[in-house]
């Protein structure tokens, strides 16, 4: 019996196959730069085809409708889809509103928000030191590294950040003006306070853009309601928004978005700003 060949013990470190197995790039060790931080937040007026938008919206509504068992569930899901947009718009539009008006990074029909907020005299010292800091730093570093965030950073253009809206009326004005102008290219048609209940306000849209091709009831308008609700809720004004169709003055598709604030919002408003 011949001696069996000594078994070659294959040492994993010497295996020739090791080099050919590539590690899958996990999010932490990929070198591909994520472009989300390198894109500017400035406003670029991009035109989108209304048909494309309508088809996308129609497909989204179709899918949600198929996956819902009741109308209420459908409306809630549609609301939730809009909610995420409202959350992001809150930060983005307020940030853009802080940029000086002369830069072209603001929308061309951005209503000026500085008229609504009172300019505090003590604010000016902070702004002076802020711009002074930015100015001082830009002299020290190299000219290519003017912004630490990269050349697309907009913060260095800001003198003072826009004030946070703390009153119901202020934030509703912002929704009526700026948010609507961003979404639909024109401010909303009316902003009304209900005379019957103190926590109800109404935003009127004569010609809803998203649902103009959809006949029937107002269920699909819950999407825009979600946007408004997301915006207001995250700004500290929890509320419920519902759409109601009220044709008037020849506008058959006129929609009224009813905003009902929670009781706590009114209580806080009363405590802080005095009851009126």
């Amino acid at each position, binding site marked *: 019996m011949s001696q069996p060949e000594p078994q070659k013990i294959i040492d994993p470190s010497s295996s020739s196959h090791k080099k050919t197995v590539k590690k899958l790039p996990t999010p932490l060790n990929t070198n591909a730069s994520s472009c989300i*931080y390198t*894109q500017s937040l400035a406003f670029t007026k991009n035109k989108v085809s209304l048909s494309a938008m309508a088809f996308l919206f129609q497909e989204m509504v179709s899918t949600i409708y198929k996956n819902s068992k009741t109308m209420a569930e459908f409306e809630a899901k549609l609301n939730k889809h809009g909610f995420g947009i409202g959350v*992001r718009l809150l*930060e983005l539009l307020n*940030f853009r509103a802080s940029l000086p008006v002369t830069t072209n990074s603001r929308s061309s029909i951005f209503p000026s928000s500085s008229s609504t907020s009172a300019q505090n005299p003590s604010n000016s010292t902070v702004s002076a030191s802020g711009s002074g800091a930015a100015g001082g730093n830009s002299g020290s*570093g190299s000219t290519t590294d003017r912004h630490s*965030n990269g050349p697309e950073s907009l913060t260095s253009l800001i003198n003072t950040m826009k004030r946070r809206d703390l009153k119901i009326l202020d934030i509703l004005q912002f929704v009526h003006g700026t948010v609507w102008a961003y979404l639909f290219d024109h401010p909303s048609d009316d902003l009304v306070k209900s005379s019957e209940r103190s926590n109800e306000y109404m935003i009127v849209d004569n010609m809803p853009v998203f649902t103009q091709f959809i006949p029937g009831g107002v269920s699909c308008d819950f999407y825009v309601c979600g946007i408004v609700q997301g915006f207001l809720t995250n700004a500290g004004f929890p509320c419920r928004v519902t759409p109601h169709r009220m044709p008037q003055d020849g506008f058959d598709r006129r929609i009224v978005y009813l905003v009902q604030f929670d009781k706590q919002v009114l209580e*806080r408003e009363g405590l802080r700003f005095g009851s009126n």
Partner: protein
Amino acid sequence: MNYFVIVGPKDKFIYETYLGNSKDTVGGSGFPPHIRDLLPFILHSSLDLVYANKWGKDSEGLDNSRCYLGLLDFFFGLPITAYVTYSGIMFLMLHFNNQILRKLDTGIIDPTSNSKTAKQLAAIAPRVKNGYVEVFYREVHELYIKTLMNPFYHMGDPITSPLFSRKVHRLSKRYLH
């Protein structure tokens, strides 16, 4: 060296980091571990003040609708500054300097002991340069908005992107040191 956090909607920290060079600290190792564990509690305790300032009046008795809330609190002489974004996300920072770090590290000063320590610390506490800190907060705010624009990122999720971290550190080198 500073300790910086971003506080999410349910008072959860969605981002925390230690800003500054390792040269700052004793032995180049950053905060000593017993201090490191204490830091989140310190900032949590000042959240009450942040909330009060968010919706209340500021030091001059006027409505505080500004984003930058300024120097809010002291923890045994260590200043805490805060900033609020439009959706209620709070940026908090606890400012240290070398002297305090050395004393903490060697155990000369124990922050949890008594109020005599507070006076000692106040003497060597770092001065907060409001202008620079505010610009730093604004830049981080812009980064936060960019993070939020990611459709897969939801409010209250922890921020894990290493690029975000790198940018925050670069900003702190620029504005805070």
